[in-house]
């Protein structure tokens, strides 16, 4: 039977959901490790840095930022899924400090089971977000597949001297997180038919929200590093930051904004497999202080779809940036930790 746009529950048509469907990070490392990569001096940020997006210098004042992201649906409504996928794909460009300009659709579509109206609604949602971001769609590619997948390849511009990578952390800098954590767990509860209407709407709204305002705000401050929180979870992405950095991070777990419902569902075991994979892969970087509840630990490893930016800002300007973010409607932004000298290249998660 072919299901149309009005009657579909997309999450029931797929195995994995959103960024939680990522290949486990350890497997990816094993697959790619040691491969012979082409070399070009103009490649400023490439694969070996495991950063949010690649950066290629075109001239002294322009570089291209390129990224790609796609996944199976984590929500039931096709239009919302399209908006979320686009916001998620654009996020990597914002996280590098760049301005997205063009995008191309990537679609896998099960034409035998889903009506073509579903595809139209997904792409329409993606276009809505692109218009919000001032990005044009220049093309795309669609293949037939057993499960729906959608995403975009995005290209933006950036000044080669003003790239925000995950590195260059300075002791004393503050960590600012711009969206709440727990979307992976809430989406698992949605898939399981447990999530109520209110929290479902709230999470969908958050995932559809572009990181554009947050990126515009941080451009005015002394920010030396930034990343966006997606499939590897909050601690997974922080681990990428501390590797080879010579410094450590201290997290105040009580200050991390989370969906309260997600804590309850984590207690019940409605946790995406990705969260456990993230802990297995990155757990060695993290020490939890005694007294950090298990459910908080779970949520800190929870894979996020279209999560917020993690901005590393000078301590003197952290409060001002937080106010500025609030004034721009990024009301949930919170200072969640700081860069510390010890423990080196580790993350200490404190109770508060």
């Amino acid at each position: 039977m072919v299901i149309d746009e009005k009657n579909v529950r997309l999450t029931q048509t797929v195995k994995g959901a959103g960024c939680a469907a990522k290949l486990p990070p350890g497997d990816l490392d094993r697959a790619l490790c040691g491969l012979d990569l082409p070399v070009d001096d103009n490649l400023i940020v490439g694969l070996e840095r495991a950063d949010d997006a690649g950066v290629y210098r075109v001239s002294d004042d322009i570089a291209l930022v390129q990224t790609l992201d796609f996944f199976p649906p984590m929500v039931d409504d096709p239009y919302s899924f399209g908006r979320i996928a686009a916001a998620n794909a654009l996020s990597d460009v914002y996280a590098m400090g760049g301005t997205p300009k063009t995008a191309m659709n990537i679609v896998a579509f099960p034409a035998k089971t889903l009506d073509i109206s579903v595809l139209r609604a997904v792409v329409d949602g993606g276009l809505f977000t692109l218009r919000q971001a001032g990005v044009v769609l220049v093309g795309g590619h669609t293949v037939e597949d057993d499960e729906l997948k959608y995403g975009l390849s995005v290209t933006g511009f950036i000044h080669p001297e003003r790239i925000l990578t995950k590195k260059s952390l300075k002791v004393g800098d503050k960590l600012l997180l711009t969206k709440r954590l727990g979307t992976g767990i809430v989406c698992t509860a949605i898939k399981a038919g447990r999530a109520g209407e209110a929290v479902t709407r709230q999470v969908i709204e958050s995932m559809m929200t572009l990181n554009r305002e947050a990126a515009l705000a941080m451009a005015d401050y002394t920010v030396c590093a930034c990343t966006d929180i997606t499939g590897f979870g909050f601690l997974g992405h922080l681990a990428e930051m501390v590797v080879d950095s010579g410094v450590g991070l201290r997290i105040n777990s009580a200050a991390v904004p989370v969906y309260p419902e997600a804590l309850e569902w984590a207690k019940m075991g409605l946790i995406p497999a990705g969260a456990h994979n993230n802990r297995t892969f990155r757990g060695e970087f993290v020490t939890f202080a005694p007294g950090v509840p298990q459910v908080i630990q779970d949520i800190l490893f929870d894979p996020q779809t279209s999560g917020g930016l993690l901005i590393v800002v000078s301590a003197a300007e952290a409060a001002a940036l937080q106010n500025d973010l609030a004034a721009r409607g990024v009301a949930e932004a919170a200072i969640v930790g700081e860069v510390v000298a010890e423990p080196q290249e580790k993350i200490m998660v404190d109770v508060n």
Partner: protein
Amino acid sequence: MKELNCRGLTCPAPVLQVRELLDKGTPSVVSVIVDNKAAVENVRRFLEYKGFQVQVEKFGVDFRLVGTAVEGACEIMPDLKPEENSGVKKILVMVGTNRLGHGDDDLGKALLLNFIKTLKEMGNDLWRLVFVNSGVSLTVEGSEAVPVLRQLTGDGVHVMVCGACLEHFKLIDKKQVGETTNMLDIVTSMQLADSVINI
């Protein structure tokens, strides 16, 4: 003892199967076989949540979780029901002016204040209050509406104040209540609201 084979199932399916089993009656011992570590962790958490003591063992290439009911614990843990759609409407009130109606301006200002004070009668249905243009003057220092709006905020009403408008009137430092917002949030709020009242 109840046994469940969840081989080949990915999260959250194993947890949902165990839940279904427990819904039919609470066994004193339950055994669940799963084939991946994520499912081990999730089923362990669920059984513990339901008041079982859990042991995990290797079972060939798979894993077996054995949960033993702790006396009396099962009934203490209330099950989490999905939130019902409680029939609460989401009403958004858009205040784009500093006075209500046309004619006498002083009367209009007094009426608007009275309107804001009376809004609480909407009860839980009142969801968001959005102030734009000269409406933002109600949220700043010296406005009699500020204590009323604070009360509404305390009751869970989301008060949103247009940032561009505050800036236009040079009132950005004077705001006393509500969250400074932007047009995208306003438009999204209108889209999510069940009804929008414009005054």
